[in-house]
């Protein structure tokens, strides 16, 4: 039997491409230090890598569609390509492209520009590939850690900045503990099933039932660790500090890509693998979802640091997405997918605006840095309003659609109390998003320094805002996509 077959190549190709380009970026960085504008070529080289990754993902998808298969297993059962994996990888790929586009000017201004940045982003993306597609515990764990370790460094990338150091330290310590929790749960699952394959674990756990103490401890520790990764309350303490201290483009990437990939892990582990012991983890998720919406919405009211405000807002969004998993029906999962797409778009757009606020001599991280944006940069301000409306869940933007599906799924499954609580916090969140609009439109500008609006930043802002509006007005393509994935993934 050949050790490495064509189907293995097909399943692993995107990750191989990402790792090769990540190493290539490092080598070129060393070689090209003296070339003028060398870093621009480095970024373009990274973008080439992302393009090739995109092509190889597309080839996987078409191979799957051509064979009429719902999933495709390779690397001796370690990696499974299915709707969930494709969905997460495509979204993460898009987020990384926007990261590259928005980072260039930011890194030039902070004088911390080097090839490691792009390389680490590519390694993180390779990690997230395995998070989304792993169907075996060792691969899943390695994917999680490759992602986390890359992000620890990216968060602390501005070495001279004390806040960035501190953010990296807090993220590292709490992230490592959460990995420890997940790992402890994995060890018990391995003991229960005698195998690291998720399929074996699924049948072993359903044989043991929800009253077995090993199953209980395993589920509780794994859920706790995963809630850490998506920064859900009560394991959210790291998020405001890490988001605040990290370089702004990295914050955006952390809040979108790593969250999407972590939700992919949650979807694969909880409903798909541990679905038979739903009675164990569902209450935990309900508590976490309600607490996340509460803490996220209330704490965001008083923040004056922009990235902290968005940290709390993304905690609240994590709560909403968890509601879709709690509902658990086809409609709920469809809601989760739609919500993740929309969340990625609007959050990336919002962080693009925050990145543009970072100018020479101006940190652009405080609420009053937005003052007068409507007069100095009317287009940026208007697009930011669109994104904020979407974050608050107002029609006709995409955010409304996402919340609509979650609420419908909750009502279908008779979770009336949860639906009412969630709706109440939508009203609260309107207030704190409106504070940003008020700063932009009702206060005079404090500085004449133009925004750091490079081509990349403008491109990613226009793209995300336009898509947010488009999905809000013509939801049909995204809904079909969500339906297709939730059908394929089951």
């Amino acid at each position, binding site marked *: 039997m050949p050790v490495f077959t064509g189907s293995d190549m097909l399943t692993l190709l995107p990750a191989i491409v990402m790792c090769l380009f990540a190493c290539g970026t490092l080598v070129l960085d060393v070689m090209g230090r003296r070339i003028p504008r060398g870093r621009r070529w480095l970024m373009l080289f990274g973008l080439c890598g992302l393009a090739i990754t995109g092509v190889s993902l597309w080839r996987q998808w078409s191979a799957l569609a051509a064979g009429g298969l719902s999933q495709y297993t390779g690397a001796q059962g370690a990696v499974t390509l299915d709707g969930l994996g494709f969905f997460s990888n495509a979204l993460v790929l898009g987020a990384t492209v926007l990261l590259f586009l928005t980072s260039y000017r930011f890194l030039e201004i902070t004088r911390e520009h080097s090839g490691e940045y792009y390389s680490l982003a590519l390694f993180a993306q390779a990690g997230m590939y395995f998070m989304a597609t792993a169907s075996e*515990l*060792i691969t899943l*764990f*390695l994917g999680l*850690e490759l992602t986390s*370790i890359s992000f*620890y*460094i990216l968060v*602390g990338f501005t*070495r*001279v900045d*004390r*806040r960035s*150091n*501190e*953010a*990296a*330290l807090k993220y*590292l*310590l709490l992230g*490592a*503990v959460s*990995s*420890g929790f997940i*790992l*402890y749960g*994995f*060890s*018990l699952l*391995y*003991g229960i099933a*005698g*195998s*690291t394959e998720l399929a074996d674990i699924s049948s072993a756990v359903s044989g043991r039932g929800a009253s077995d103490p090993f199953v209980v401890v395993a589920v509780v520790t794994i859920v706790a660790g995963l809630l850490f990764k998506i920064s859900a309350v009560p394991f959210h303490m790291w998020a*405001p*500090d890490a988001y*605040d*201290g990290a370089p702004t483009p990295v914050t955006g990437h952390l809040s979108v890509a790593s969250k999407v990939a972590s939700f992919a892990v949650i979807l694969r582990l909880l409903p798909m693998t541990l679905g038979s012991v739903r009675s164990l983890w569902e209450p935990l998720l309900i508590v976490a979802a309600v607490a996340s919406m509460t803490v996220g919405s209330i704490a965001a009211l008083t923040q004056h640091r922009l990235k902290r405000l968005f940290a709390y807002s993304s905690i609240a969004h994590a709560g909403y997405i968890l509601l879709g998993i709690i509902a658990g029906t086809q409609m709920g999962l469809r809601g989760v997918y739609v919500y993740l797409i929309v969340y990625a778009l609007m959050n990336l757009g919002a962080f693009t605006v925050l990145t543009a606020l970072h100018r020479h001599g101006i940190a652009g991280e405080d609420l009053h840095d937005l003052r007068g944006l409507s007069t100095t940069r009317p287009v940026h301000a208007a697009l930011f309003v669109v994104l904020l409306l979407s974050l608050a869940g107002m029609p006709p933007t995409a955010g409304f659609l996402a919340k609509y599906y979650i609420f419908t799924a909750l009502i279908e499954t008779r979770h009336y109390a949860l639906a009412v609580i969630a709706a109440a916090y939508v009203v609260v969140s309107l207030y704190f998003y409106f504070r940003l609009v008020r700063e932009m439109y009702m206060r005079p500008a404090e500085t004449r320094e133009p925004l750091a609006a490079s081509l990349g930043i403008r491109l990613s802002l226009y793209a995300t805002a336009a898509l947010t509006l488009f999905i809000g007005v013509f939801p049909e393509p995204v809904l079909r996509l969500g339906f297709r994935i939730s059908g394929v993934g089951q």
Partner: protein
Amino acid sequence: MHHVPLSWYLILSAILFALGIAGFIYRKNIITVFMSIELMLNAVNLSFVAFAYQLRQVDGQIYAFFVMVVAAAEAAVGLAIILTVFKNRKTLQIDEIDSMKL
């Protein structure tokens, strides 16, 4: 021939894991906190190896090797981050690193 039963290993692993959590919560020095995390990972390794021995498999032992590799990588990155923090602040006490408190 006396065999140590599996449950003893698992209890020891749980105790070590709990000690790691306690150290993480109560210790004030960053290096000690970091060591507590390593203790948690080693507790996990113990239970993997114990299960692997019980099941007469190598999967669990291989898993333990991967955990060690990842722990080493994490330590390398972690110590580098701790070093930059120390350079900027001249302290390793966790309470004093709080420039972002509101």
